[in-house]
């Protein structure tokens, strides 16, 4: 499995997207905090967090005795960059040019 596959697999699940959304709203949470917002066993939440960690979308750091979970946007950024390079660069720059022209003439 490539790095990209891991990211897509991790994102393909609504519970894992919910966990990422929670971390986006407030970063650096403990397992207990994340678990309290889900109708799911602690073990279930841990399993989902592990998939997110394997995709590097979540990075954990220790703070004393607690383990904090942080959202890492870099893997999404990397996929985004590749897509921009491959498919959309021209279209995006054309739109930016159009916006500039329209705003200049307005």
């Amino acid at each position, binding site marked *: 499995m490539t790095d990209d596959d891991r990211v897509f697999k991790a994102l393909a699940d609504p519970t894992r997207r919910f966990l990422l959304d929670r971390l986006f709203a407030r970063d650096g949470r403990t397992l207990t905090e994340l678990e309290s917002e889900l109708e799911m066993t602690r073990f279930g939440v841990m399993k989902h967090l592990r998939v997110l960690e394997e995709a*590097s979308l979540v990075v954990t750091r220790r703070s004393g005795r607690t383990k904090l979970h942080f959202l890492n946007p870099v893997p999404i950024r990397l996929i985004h960059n590749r897509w921009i390079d491959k498919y959309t660069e021209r279209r995006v720059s054309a739109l930016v040019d159009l916006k500039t022209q329209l705003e200049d003439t307005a």
Partner: protein
Amino acid sequence: MTTAIDAKVTTQVYRVFIKATPQAIWDAITKPEWTERYGYGGRAEYELRAGGKYRAHAPEPMRAMGAPAVVVDGEVIESDPPRRLVQTWRALWDPALVAEGARRLTWEIEVAGPGVSALTVTHELEGAPQTAATVAGNTDLASGGGGWPWILSDLKTLLESGKPLQG
């Protein structure tokens, strides 16, 4: 207790896996001939010892837009090449950011597999909401999004392909 809670909400953590040696990544972070080739392209100047100075010089296009000669400054707290660099970091291109002051920034480089290293950047941003918003970047495609996600993905691209994202 409040401090601990604040710390976890305001710290930002970024990790990127790069097909490069820890030494190559260390050089790309600390040597000006490397730092001018990715991200915002400013030449970094590090005195790699505890208490040493850190400065990032504005690249020409940024100067032309009115940026100060030195866009980021700080102090080296710990230098353990090629594994760990702890420093303070203060943005100087905007008075609001200058007012928020310097915050702690930690670079950690670990071997993650054969020929692969993990670079983890931890930016502690307690009480610096504008700096936090700036370094987190945004989703503006035309400007490359900015912030650490963009800088680190550009660093990865440069080290793995020899070329930055745009250029």
